[in-house]
């Protein structure tokens, strides 16, 4: 105790600075600077005049780009679509990952290592490749699954306007459930086995062990997985981009990120794209921290 108390409070430690400097520089250059750049850019707009063949000028428009984005019906629609997608995807992802983790970590699981790898493998497939792959499976002309179903009289079109959101959710689930499962398995493995022994001596069933020991103890990991999934779903981009040419149900502004991409790279309006990106970032911020506040309230430990 005397030792810690006598430690000098503000000693200059060069090693600390030298070792953190690379991080600070990179963090500033590649994280802070782009954010500041995007925010500044979102306050400007390039204007032409006459027939538009002269050089344009950059003018300060303050929040006009934000107003333009939020008064654009298809952008607002894409925000709504994204929320709907999150409502489908987040619970589905968390429940699937948790279910798989509990099954593979239960005492009766057969070949848990094999299945762990099997479920994790899709995560190793790059997002674009995964979407292309599923794209082939979603088109009747190239999909053995749909052709098989059609042969027995079931006609499904996963890329119809009513089904496409689920088709995308399926790709995301396929790609990331295994990863989230692994996080939860790690948490389950960290539970000391004395707790299980004590429970069994007390005569607890597998079900009540799961409910009263496993779930409460992996709670922090479940929260982590949920926050990651919320952030991930809000960035929905690759899957609709790749599937877009295959269906009439996906427009060039199907999700906010797609709309920003389209504005910036197809329509030459990076300022509006920056405003859209900031809006999505704000929503992600509000959702993630809102969720964390919700689950971390005192007394909110129902399970």
């Amino acid at each position: 105790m005397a030792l810690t108390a006598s430690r000098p409070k503000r000693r200059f430690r060069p090693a600390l600075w030298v070792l953190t400097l690379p991080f600070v520089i990179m963090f500033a250059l590649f994280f802070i600077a782009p954010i500041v750049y995007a925010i500044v850019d979102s306050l400007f707009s390039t204007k032409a005049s006459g027939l538009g063949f002269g050089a344009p000028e950059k003018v300060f428009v303050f929040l006009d780009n934000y107003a333009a984005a939020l008064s654009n019906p298809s952008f607002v629609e894409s925000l709504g679509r994204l929320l709907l997608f999150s409502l489908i995807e987040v619970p589905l992802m968390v429940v699937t990952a948790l279910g798989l983790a509990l099954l593979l970590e239960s005492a009766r699981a057969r070949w848990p290592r094999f299945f762990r790898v099997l479920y994790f493998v899709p995560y190793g497939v790059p997002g674009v490749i995964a979407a292309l792959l599923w794209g082939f499976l979603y088109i009747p002309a190239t999909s053995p699954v749909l052709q098989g179903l059609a042969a027995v009289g079931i006609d499904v079109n996963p890329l119809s306007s009513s089904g496409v959101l689920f088709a995308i959710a399926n790709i995301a689930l396929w790609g990331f459930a295994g990863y989230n499962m692994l996080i939860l398995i790690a948490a389950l493995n960290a539970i000391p086995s004395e707790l299980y022994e004590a429970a069994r001596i007390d005569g607890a069933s597998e079900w009540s062990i799961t409910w009263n020991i496993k779930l409460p103890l992996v709670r922090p990991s479940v929260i982590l997985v949920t926050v990651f999934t919320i952030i991930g779903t809000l960035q929905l981009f690759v899957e609709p981009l790749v599937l877009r040419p295959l269906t009439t149900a996906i427009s060039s502004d199907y999700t906010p990120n797609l709309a920003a991409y389209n504005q910036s790279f197809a329509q030459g309006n990076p300022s509006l794209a920056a405003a859209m990106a900031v809006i999505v970032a704000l929503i992600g911020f509000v959702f993630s921290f809102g969720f964390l506040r919700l689950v971390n309230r005192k007394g909110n430990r129902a399970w």
Partner: protein
Amino acid sequence: MFGPRNNRTARLALAGAVTLGLVGGLAACSSGGDSGSTASADNPVEITFQSWVPNIDQAVDAFNASHDDVKVTLETVTAGPDGGYAKMLSAVQAGNPADVAQLGYDAIPDFLVNDALEDITDYVGDSSDLFVPWQWNTGVFNDKVYAVPQASGPLGQFYRKDIFDSLGIAYPTTWDEYYQAAKTIHASDPNKYITAFAFNQAPWLIGLSQQGGANWFSTSDDAWNVTIDDESTLKVADFWQKLIDEGLVKIEADFSSEWNADIQNGNVATWISGSWADAILRGTAPDTAGKWAVGAMPQWQAGEDVSATWAGGSASAVLKGSKHPKEAAEFALWLNSDPESVNILTNVGAGWPAIADTSEITSLQSDPEVFSFYGGQDIWDVFAASDAAVDTSWKWPPLSSTLFSSLTDNVKSAVEGGTPLTDAYTKTQDDMVAALKAKGISVN
């Protein structure tokens, strides 16, 4: 995306950035000094050329072989609307663009409104008479030259002659006959369609309207007149609406894997496309060699001869910020007018040459490899006639990219939601006028 993969990519990106930064720093020490030095055989000026035309490297090689003082490096980019233009524009903004870029005629005003093109009047202004006037004029604004035309994409109809013959269908010379042919083809086999309705392809949709007599953009009093919902366009839209409603065309994106399969197995029997589509067709469906033929565009009035283009054509422009605009402009001129180069370009499928005198272009006179794919037909006769029948007064406004994406989005949602196709064009009219005004451009 759906997990902390971001962290990993962020770390990778960071590591990459560090490496790049180090390498870049080293490179900066060793390079420098080539700008401003006079060109000579020992010390040639190096310029880069961005294009997406397959095999255009043959033309670049030919240039390098015949020029000692300039060395061109080809950089292959994705097709303009699919990301190539974005790459070029960002490079211009960042101040390190390629010197010469492949640009669609539709994209030239778009690049101009972004202040991304170099004025090359001083270098190539005298060469206007080498080119077909309307194509030359696609690169001229306010009497300044910004681009050298390469090739146009006059429309023709590629069709499976064997299917037409076996069903006893004569080649449709009018759209009425086209409609009848569509019915016969679909009646013969419910999986077969006369064509794919390419909701994703703005140049295709625009070409059909143009061939119907539409002329969407004109200027008067230093302002644009926009008439995307004119009578001719709505007539064309109503025609395709009828085919869609009766299930006679397949709603399908062109160049998609599904479309490729349908072209290969004959479920889609025709394709209205530019002259350059020949190379694509031969590449996509080599097994169907000998079964295809090419016909002129069906007409709205029997006996007429009206054609159109696939979004005009393609040009070479010098990007703003090029360190060697003179050499870049000279390369652009050589590439698109030297008979040797134009021969190569025509061979590789760049399109219908923009030069006025095509007598030296041997590949247009006879090309056994191409003609045998079409059962021995000289398909270039069809496109020569088509090129001559194009309404050359069509003018591209700035923001053609907005036009393309708005048009395809609106047509998509009409097809998807079962709303009238004509509404899609009315909506596109509103979108385009709003976009132009928002950009500060005058609209009447």
